[in-house]
């Protein structure tokens, strides 16, 4: 449909061309490309003509983009860190009361042979009682008990946390096993906390994204006002709305892009600044943890997001303020 319209328009143009001007399609395309390039260049040049104003706007955008991104990277890092901790989650296996020592030894071997188990250690009821005595301070009270109330137990270290639920179910099936406990309550608490952190990132990103749109929109509004005469003349000599809009959209795009670029550089700087202290902390915990930054894809994504938000702000502003300029 659109193409038939286009050809109809072209043939109309050709008829007119006999008296007025002919523009071949290739020429049009060249002109279009040239126009886009020069529009981008002149938008950039106009930004440079007011360096302080431009810098301020770009910095505001950069900060607005950096804040949620930094928070996002923090949350991701903590998640990675908690991933490392998760592997240290242990399964405690309590043995039924009255099991014979031979059976208990066999159970130990059986547990060690289960797939997904990294190591098994035995804690006899006696050892557990002694430990409890030493740690709890109820030693004197325990003396009044006739027998040791604690069961024999095994500590099973799973290879992967993801497997541990399956492992727990499997161990439960063993007849000699009384109860199984997976020690990961605090982990699910951390998970919930991280979940909240992610939501906070989203909310902050949305709010600051709106802020960027408003900042760019206001900048574009001022630009439109200062170029009012030009807009009127362009319209009178036959410029389409798209033609009039274009330089402002490019300006918005450039603001968003450079804001994101500076924001990304700020994040990289922040990473370099934090890295030594993070490494110190990690070595204190004997952890292999390394701070992970934006990454190349994150860098690219930030630029794309910055550019789009800038473009959106410009678009909203242009479509609002162009209506006020006559002729329409």
């Amino acid at each position, binding site marked *: 449909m659109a193409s038939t319209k286009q050809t109809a328009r072209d043939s109309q143009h050709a008829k*007119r061309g006999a*008296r*007025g*001007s002919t*523009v071949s399609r290739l*020429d*049009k395309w*060249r*002109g*279009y490309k*040239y*126009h886009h390039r020069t529009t981008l260049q002149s938008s950039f040049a106009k930004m440079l003509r007011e360096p302080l104003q431009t810098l301020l706007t770009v910095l505001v955008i950069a900060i607005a983009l950096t804040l949620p991104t930094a928070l996002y990277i923090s949350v991701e890092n903590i998640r990675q860190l908690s991933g490392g901790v998760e592997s240290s989650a242990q399964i405690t296996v309590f043995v039924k009361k009255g099991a014979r020592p031979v059976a208990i030894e066999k159970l130990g071997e059986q547990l060690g042979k289960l797939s997904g188990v990294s190591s098994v250690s035995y804690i006899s009821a006696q050892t557990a009682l002694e430990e409890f005595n030493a740690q709890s301070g109820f030693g004197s009270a325990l003396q009044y008990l006739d027998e040791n109330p604690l069961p024999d137990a095994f500590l099973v270290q799973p290879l992967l946390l993801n497997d541990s639920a399956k492992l727990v179910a499997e161990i439960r099936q063993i007849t000699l096993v009384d109860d199984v406990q997976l020690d990961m309550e605090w982990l699910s608490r951390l998970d919930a906390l991280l979940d909240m952190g992610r939501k906070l990132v989203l909310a902050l990103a949305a709010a600051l994204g709106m802020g960027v749109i408003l900042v760019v929109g206001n900048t574009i509004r001022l630009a439109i006002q200062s170029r009012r*005469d*030009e807009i*009127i*003349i*362009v*319209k*009178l*000599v*036959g*410029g*389409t*709305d798209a*033609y009039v809009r274009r330089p402002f959209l490019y300006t918005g795009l450039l603001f968003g892009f450079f804001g994101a670029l500076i924001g990304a550089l700020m994040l990289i700087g922040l990473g370099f600044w934090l890295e030594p202290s993070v490494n110190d902390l990690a070595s204190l915990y004997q952890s292999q943890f390394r701070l992970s930054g934006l990454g190349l894809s994150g860098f690219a994504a930030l630029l794309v997001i910055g550019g789009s938000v800038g473009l959106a702000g410009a678009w909203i502003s242009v479509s609002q303020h162009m209506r006020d300029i*006559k*002729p*329409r």
Partner: protein
Amino acid sequence: MIRFDNLSKRYTGGFEALRNVSFEMDSGEMAFLTGHSGAGKSTLLKLLMLIERPTAGNLLINGKNLNRLAKSRIPFYRRQLGVVFQNHQLLFDRTVFDNVALPLQVSGYSPSEIGRRVRAALDSVGLLDREKQSPIELSGGEQQRVGIARAVVHKPKILLADEPTGNLDPQLSAEIMALFRRFQDVGVTVLVATHDISLINKMNMRIMRLNQGELELDEVAHGLD
């Protein structure tokens, strides 16, 4: 080429700028539009430029009714016009060349084509050597000629001029008018709004006189008034 068919324009305030105006202009014809200020000359030109829309009547260009022109087609219609403004409406933030190039850039001409046509247009108004200057460095008459170059650079079929000699001395005004006649000679339809009666009476041309929104005179002048 241009046909006004019982055209009226009433502004939202109630002021009736044009009342039942009817006339026709053939292709390649040249005419002057005169009258006191406020008689409706500017409104008539604004209707032709589609800056304003008529409240009644039809305006036909090349047989096409402008009332039925969709808003999105207005820019393409305007590209058939060349307009010379009283205060020349040049942009001082760019060179003479870039000012004249504007209608071509807007229509998507390639840079090489733009260069050729802009120089041809500047040559036709005798300002080829000024292309790199800013319009602000030029005299009033030169600025107006740049405005004319911009109006004809895309070879429009219709040339409209609103008080093109407004602030110019008689000799410069005569030069500008001679320029318009040259465009008429190559087939452009030329409509010039002016109150400069002494000038146009010497030219033996069609004169349309507006008075309070009505067309009170439409004839070829032979030293009247």
